[in-house]
């Protein structure tokens, strides 16, 4: 009785918002005040600690209630699994009658079950004090509001200062970003600042940053993401293993308390990371290291850089989905893993419109990159390959199956209730997993995610195909200057 609905999958996690609107909760300062010297930038980490209650500061009552919630959800989930198991006879005979469509349902169920079964096996590599030289590369475009805070957050990271380099690349911003970067350089003299005279796109900015950086490991943090102070050392732990080319950290939603959309995305992020990336990581085959917080070995990056930077798709330069493309380029010959201890927080879209634009962009990059990933993933572990092939196949079939189940089956068999209930049960399991694993009262937002997924996101696959030609980012200009644009380099004031 499985459905297409309950799959959490990670699309290309590339995002960049209009940063003027990104800090929705922070009041805009008036024009006059902005001209004055800025006060010491807000430490984003403080904001994080306030935004992410981790049961530490909760009262005893809340602790007891969350425990109770976890326990009840555990029993509830077990009962639900048992109930689904009882329906297996019916499902099997439905399968015999309609092998094509119920075969799909069974496969989806199998896929979800293996993902959820593999995920708990994942254990993050413990930090054994491995501290290679690291370069944090920050591409920035029109981010005067927060670029200084982002740079400060990098230097606030709990990492040996002599092994840390920060490279910021201003991608031809038209606002005060460059001035802000230079003012940050006054506080952090080791900062390496680069500037394109004209906007060349995020990929070019990242590539320039990678080329000019000097650390063994390049770390990427999206401009709308904040890394916890201990995140940087945590993400290095895996690089002790020479086979590993890339590591992706955990991302949670920074503004999860803002509205139902962000709460919903928090549940989705958790499953996308802990379950999808966690299970992929067991085989060293994470197919998307989200731009929120990821790290790669620099020599590996340099070897794939020309291909990645000049990637073309359907005769145009590929713009969005840089993170997924980079992961794929690295994954071909190296292992990419997930590190749950390396935690970051990212700003999720707060309006449906922004959310859909972002999802469509992820979908398009997923479409493009799945064409690459199917060509080499078979060389990885067979189980990882099978799961990846399934995850590539399912979104194509999901809309057809949904129409078939809800319309055709209803006309033929009289009622869609059995199918709908199956979908609901799967959605419940998805949400209960979050409640049990995270002991979180936000668990039920998983239900709304599945509803949104079935109502909108499933259909986006075809829409994305139809609009593949439109490569606009949605928040960025899509026309970029060519490679001849001069690069201005503001070297570090002191050499580190």
């Amino acid at each position, binding site marked *: 009785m499985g459905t297409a609905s309950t799959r959490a999958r990670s699309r290309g996690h590339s995002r960049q918002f209009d940063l003027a609107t990104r800090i929705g909760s922070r009041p805009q300062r008036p024009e006059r005040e902005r001209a004055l010297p800025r006060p010491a930038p807000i430490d984003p980490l403080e904001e994080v600690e306030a935004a992410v209650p981790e049961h530490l500061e909760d009262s005893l009552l809340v602790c007891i*209630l969350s425990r109770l919630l976890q326990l009840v959800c555990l029993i509830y989930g077990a009962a639900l699994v048992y109930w689904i198991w009882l329906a297996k006879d019916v499902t099997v005979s439905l399968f*015999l009658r309609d092998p094509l469509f119920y075969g799909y349902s069974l496969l989806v169920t199998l896929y979800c079950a293996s993902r959820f079964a593999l995920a708990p096996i994942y254990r993050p590599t413990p930090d054994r004090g491995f501290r290679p030289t690291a370069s944090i590369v920050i591409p920035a475009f029109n981010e005067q509001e927060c670029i200084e805070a982002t740079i400060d957050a990098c230097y606030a990271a709990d990492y040996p200062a002599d092994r840390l380099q920060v490279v910021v690349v201003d991608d031809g911003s038209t606002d005060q970003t460059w001035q802000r970067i230079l003012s940050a350089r006054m506080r952090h003299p080791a900062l390496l600042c680069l500037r394109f005279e004209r906007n060349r796109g995020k990929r070019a900015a990242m590539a320039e940053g990678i080329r000019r950086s000097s650390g063994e490991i390049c770390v990427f943090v999206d401009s709308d993401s904040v890394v916890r102070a201990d995140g940087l050392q945590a993400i290095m732990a895996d690089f002790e293993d020479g086979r590993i080319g890339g590591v992706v950290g955990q991302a949670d939603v920074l503004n999860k308390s803002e509205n139902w959309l962000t709460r919903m995305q928090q549940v989705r992020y958790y499953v996308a990371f802990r379950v999808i990336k966690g299970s992929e990581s067991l085989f060293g085959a994470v197919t998307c290291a989200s731009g929120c917080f990821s790290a790669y070995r620099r020599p590996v990056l340099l070897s794939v850089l020309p291909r990645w930077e000049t990637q073309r798709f359907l005769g145009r330069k590929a713009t969005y989905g840089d993170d997924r493309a980079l992961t794929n380029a690295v994954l071909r010959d190296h292992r990419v893993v997930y590190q749950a201890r390396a935690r970051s927080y990212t700003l999720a879209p707060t309006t449906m419109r922004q959310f859909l634009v972002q999802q469509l962009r992820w979908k398009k990059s997923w479409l493009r990159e799945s064409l690459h990933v199917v060509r080499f993933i078979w060389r990885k572990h067979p189980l990882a390959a099978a799961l990846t092939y399934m995850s590539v196949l399912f979104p194509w079939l999901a809309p057809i199956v949904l129409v078939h189940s809800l319309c055709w089956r209803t006309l033929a068999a009289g009622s869609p209730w059995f199918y709908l209930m199956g979908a609901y049960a799967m959605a419940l399991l998805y949400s209960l997993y979050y409640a049990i694993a995270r002991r979180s*009262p936000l668990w039920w937002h998983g239900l709304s995610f599945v509803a949104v997924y079935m109502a909108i996101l499933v259909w986006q696959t075809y829409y994305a195909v139809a609009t593949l030609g439109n490569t606009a980012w949605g928040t960025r200009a899509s026309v970029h200057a060519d490679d001849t644009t001069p690069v201005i380099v503001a070297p570090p004031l002191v050499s580190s």
Partner: protein
Amino acid sequence: MTNRGLRETIVGLVMIPLSVVPIWLYVTKTDDGYLMYLRARYALAPPSTPRLSHEQYRLASAARHQREVGVAVLLYHGIGRTSTDGGGSRFVISRTRFAEQMRALDAAGYRAITCRMLAGYLRNGRSRNLPRKPILITFDDGRFDAMLQADPILRDTHLRATMFVIAKRAQDGALYYATSDELRGYVRSGRWEIENHTYDLHSAQQVGRFSRSALATPHAGETLSHYRWRISRDLDRAQHSLGGPIAFAYPFGDWGEEAPAGVAQVLHRVLRKRFLLAFDQDGQSSWRSAIPGDDRLRIHRLEVSDWTPVALLARLRVGSRRSAAALRHA
């Protein structure tokens, strides 16, 4: 902060029962859901078979020594709540009522027989191979709710039953009908025998303003020989998939009495070659037990509805008396 944490936690807790609401609606408002509920109930904790009250038991066991003439054939359809059937309460009986009736039959000394035993009795007229008070309990349609709930009751009352199965629906495996696998399991228990209720002719067919049984209705312009070929093929498919039954039940009890001329005869000839017995559900008010000399292809069954155990025993008594009179008359 803590306040918000507390509020969120409480909302999270409240959402647990709220999230059960769709499941609850599914179970209480839809047929599928009710059947899914029954599956869970019987898999986890099957309910115990209700017992007769002291008074009912006394009345039922008082009938133990009454002599029985002929074989009473009872007909049930579904067991459960009435909403599981569009036809209303005529085709469904509550589990408690069914259990009471079975308990009463047991207490009154009835022993359930098989179709083959009944066929033998009708053929040679000898009741030597029958128990002293024989009864044949039949169910039509192969409904899952009936088999699931009747089975433990039959076990507890030492009875057995005959299920007339619409073969195609058992193969299709809709929730509403017992699947072929489940049927095999019930046969293995020794409490059930599976008989023929057509392969796929258990449907209503519109003839002018009337709706008729598909089995007894030739298509428009169809010759009788083609009609004969068509129903023969259907019945043979059912025979094949059900493992060679020896008895047949007319869908809706319609043996072709209102069909165009010749149809009833063709049907009779088709059935005669394939079955020892065929059951209808005619003449409820004048119903009596089956006795030697009855048409073996038109055995009447008593449609049992929501009667008290005492009322059921009284109906059986009346049927037996009528059969005794018919025998004397013959």
